[in-house]
């Protein structure tokens, strides 16, 4: 019996568009253990949000989802029907969204919205739900928690609302929390607090956490393992240490070159973005998705789909021909050229 909270294999999401089928997510496989933080990183539009929505079975209606495996704590939850799925959502896994300003219902109080998550899934009285709400509001660092229960979302700041969303996700004591860029919409000063809070709660309640982010600085601080996504595919996986110390995929290296690393990046060094744009996901690409931007591209990269090469250590994988040529272990580029 493994301690896998989440196991996803070959998750694929297609969205029909007027110009053809958009292959938004292609054969993505991830897993999360109890007490582990998996960070999914990648540029905008690479399919991070759709992946998390697919796990929750909350995709837009027109999107189609396939997978060979989708298990929560060893139990398959793929296509089990809306009724059974809704028993799992908010109960055994919850999600925190990017937009705290609009993610709470303006018509109901904080207390009502917190309690209803618990009362939906567990047999508890109003009073017990209320006590749990107060307990968790305090846990997420909200002062005067009891008096907040009667407040409406519009009376709270963005940072407070996101704390409420986190408390709400915790109401039923889930095994897994998926946080999709939970701090992007917040002030920089508050971002750090919220992330710190998430990491702390994850440890305290021993949950699995999937954190989706653009911010590699955040990843460096809280990730156990990292999955790097590019254009609908996972291009590299590994422990945080492996990814930061020895990035194998040219895209990962490009991403790392874009962030200042204390002690490594020279002061005043130029911080670049990876040149080029993300390819369209409408229609099929013959070879490597990153080929149009890759500094190390060669002819063979464009001829056939690139498989996910497994590294020597378990959990390490790279979707790049270079990995096959065993030319992987290069030190992280320092600064950017």
């Amino acid at each position, binding site marked *: 019996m493994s301690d896998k909270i989440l196991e996803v294999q070959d998750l694929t999401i297609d969205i029909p568009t007027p110009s053809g089928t958009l292959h938004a997510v292609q054969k993505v496989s991830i897993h999360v253990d109890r007490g582990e933080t998996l960070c999914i990183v990648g540029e905008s539009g690479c399919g991070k949000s759709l992946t998390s929505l697919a796990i*929750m079975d909350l995709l837009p209606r027109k999107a189609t989802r396939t997978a060979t495996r989708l298990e929560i704590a060893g139990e398959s939850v793929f296509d089990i029907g809306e009724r059974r799925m*809704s028993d799992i959502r908010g109960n055994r896994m919850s999600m925190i*969204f990017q937009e705290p300003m609009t*993610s*709470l*219902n*303006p*018509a109901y*109080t904080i207390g009502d919205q917190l309690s209803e998550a618990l009362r*939906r899934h567990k047999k508890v009285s109003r009073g017990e739900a209320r006590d749990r709400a107060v307990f968790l509001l305090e846990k997420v660092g909200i002062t005067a928690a009891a008096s907040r229960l009667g407040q409406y979302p519009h009376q709270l700041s963005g940072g407070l609302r996101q704390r409420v969303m986190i408390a709400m996700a915790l109401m039923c004591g889930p095994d897994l929390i998926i946080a999709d860029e939970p701090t992007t919409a917040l002030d920089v000063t508050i971002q750090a607090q919220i992330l710190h809070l998430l990491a702390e709660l994850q440890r305290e309640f021993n949950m699995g956490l999937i954190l989706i982010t653009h911010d590699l600085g955040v990843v460096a601080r809280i990730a156990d393992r990292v999955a790097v996504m590019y254009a609908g595919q996972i291009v590299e996986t590994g422990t945080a240490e492996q990814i930061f110390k020895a990035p194998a995929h040219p895209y990962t290296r490009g991403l790392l070159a874009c962030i200042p690393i204390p002690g490594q990046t020279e002061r005043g060094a130029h911080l670049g973005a990876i040149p080029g744009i993300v390819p369209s996901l409408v229609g099929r690409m013959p070879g490597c998705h990153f080929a149009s931007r890759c500094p190390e591209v060669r002819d063979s990269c464009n001829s056939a789909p690139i498989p996910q090469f497994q590294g020597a250590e378990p959990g390490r994988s790279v979707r790049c021909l270079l990995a096959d040529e065993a030319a992987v272990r290069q030190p992280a580029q320092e600064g950017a050229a």
Partner: protein
Amino acid sequence: MIQFALKRLGIAVLVALTVSMLSFSMIYLSGDPAVALAGEGASQEDIENVRRVYGFERPLIVQYGDWLIRALQGNLGHSNYLKADVASVIFERLPTTMLLGACALAFALILAIPLGVVAAIRANSMIDRVALTIAVIGQAMPSFWLALTLILWFGINWRMLPITGTASWLNFIMPSIALGYYVTPAVMRLTRAGMLEVLSSDYIRTARAKGLRPMTVLFKHALRNAIIPVVSLSAVQFGFMLGGSIVIETIFAINGLGFLAWESIQRADLPMMQAIVLVFSVFYILLTFLADLLNGFLDPRIRVA
């Protein structure tokens, strides 16, 4: 909320004052009111007498002030035709019209809101299209025509419902449908649009992510927010229906205010017409005010500042 209510009340009072001026000036619509009141073939002396008795020789503003104070005291003048106090005639007829309006609005809401909700959940489906068709037909069909059609089938051919009068609740069925059907499309379209917008909002996604049952998501989280604009629309439509009651009450011979308005126009009963216009307008303003309050009550962003 109190501040909000006071502001709305202030606006309502201002509008009511404007309307009262318009209504007051109706006496002068047909020229010299003294001539009109004295009747045909009256001598110059009679006319002067009338002018003095009614105070028409005073400055307009004084006449208006006087009229307004009396109106506020419930004295709306005297109907020469009916030989009766205008206010008492109106308050005798008012309940019938209100009852008709309420039944019509209830019919409209009961039909329109569920249709709008279903049309939104199943947007672009068969049901949505049928609902749209009903809406278009409703908007295009004059209510007098619908009234006559109903009378023809249910009243005359099948003899299921009484055609005229207010003897029992059965008498109200056809008039309510004829009057209410006209507002169904607007309410339905607004409900549909509101639901569509709300259903794609982030907080609905949150509600689903919490694992709430589809019915809870739909009614507690979605409809509750989508219904807010429908409330104001309903109040406005209720006002329109008061106007529509003139036609419908006349067709079905319902002894309400609408019928009275029609009769008074025919008899050139000026004080009565003036008072009916005033009562309808004030009622309309009152409805709008109540709708604003209800809106504020339903929307915590207004209620809890």
